[in-house]
């Protein structure tokens, strides 16, 4: 048995759809959200600024409504199964907000294994974002060797720091910054899980 810890990006790695654009679509502000998300994935806007701008767009949607949309999002089930089977060694590392993803984390049984951004809620509305995750900082905290899987520009440093850093292009294109530092890249969910199982 290896000593690897497995870190997974959430958006378009575990999920088959991108979370913020999916919410935006359901509440009718898709175009603006899409533009910001694309710029961010390509690394044209720093993640923190872009994330806060995108949160601003969704601030007037009740938290519970967002949470339900996220909870029901389509998932890459084979990856989710791998995570469930190896739960004690898997962590989800996402820029998304705790108050929006708690239902989804509960659905896949990862409530205690998630690093994410955090926000305050007043009534059923988002009051303030008080921390935005820095995936690089999470990676730097790791003591044991780890495997990291992701696709976006904000995953690049975590993937670079990993012993095995995997770019996953099963949902969308892998960001150029990830291609530049990953040890592997894979475009099929089956192939990704097949390789992850060899690393357990």
């Amino acid at each position, binding site marked *: 048995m290896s000593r690897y810890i497995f870190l997974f990006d959430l958006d378009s790695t575990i999920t088959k759809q991108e979370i913020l654009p999916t919410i935006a679509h359901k509440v009718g502000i898709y175009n603006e959200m899409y533009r910001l998300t694309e710029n961010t994935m390509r690394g044209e806007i720093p993640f923190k600024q872009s994330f806060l701008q995108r949160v601003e767009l969704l601030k007037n949607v009740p938290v519970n409504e967002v949470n339900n949309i996220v909870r029901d999002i389509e998932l890459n089930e084979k990856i989710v199964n791998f995570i469930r089977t190896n739960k004690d060694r898997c962590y989800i590392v996402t820029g998304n907000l705790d108050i929006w993803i708690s239902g989804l984390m509960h659905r896949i049984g990862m409530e205690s294994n998630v690093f994410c951004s955090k926000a305050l809620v007043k009534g059923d509305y988002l009051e303030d974002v008080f921390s935005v995750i820095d995936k690089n900082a999470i990676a730097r905290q790791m003591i044991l060797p780890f495997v990291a899987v992701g696709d976006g520009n904000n995953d690049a440093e975590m993937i670079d720091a990993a012993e095995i850093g995997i770019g996953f292009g099963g949902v969308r294109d892998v960001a150029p910054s990830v291609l530049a530092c990953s*040890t592997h890249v894979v475009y099929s969910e089956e192939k990704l899980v097949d390789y992850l199982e060899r690393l357990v």
Partner: protein
Amino acid sequence: MGNRLGLGTTKALVEVEGKPLIIRHLEQLENEDDIRVVVGYQAEKVIEVVKQYRKDVLFVFNHNYRETGTGASVALAARYANEYILSLDGDLLVHPEDMKMILACQEEFVGGNPVETDDPWMLQTYERDGQEYVSAFSKCMGNYEWNGLTQMKSSKMLKGNGHVFQLIEPFLPVRFMNIRTKEIDTVNDYERAIEWVRNGYK
């Protein structure tokens, strides 16, 4: 990296009779389920071509491809692999019948063919009980030309920065296998390869 061919593309993407060499490999490996393509020079281009043809491939990066040899690439691909790995260079054409024989082989071997190119690494071999074995790789003398093809236990191929044969050397002797191939290194090689494919590999 395709320099001696003067085509400006990585050799795996060089087309022979309208088909890139890497796709010719993938066609021959159709029934194999753990295919790893090591990418370095023009990685994105190679990935694009391969994934159009087949999605369930694991791409392995050798980001240091300028400073390392093919042995480093094989060592990276050998991590967490099956018991045996079959290593094929990207600039090689393999006779379809011989590829079938290779894929049926359940043991280690080193591949070669009669000396054909200008500056080959050669294989010194000896015979025992009707089977030929490779005892050394050499620049000066040998009975066959090493064509880069080998099947070895993956656990033996995990360390190295130079050539693939340097990974194999500590484990010699290894069974020899005569495999008909064309390596595409120069423009003359390229023309010979096209001719070979056109004539049905004769």
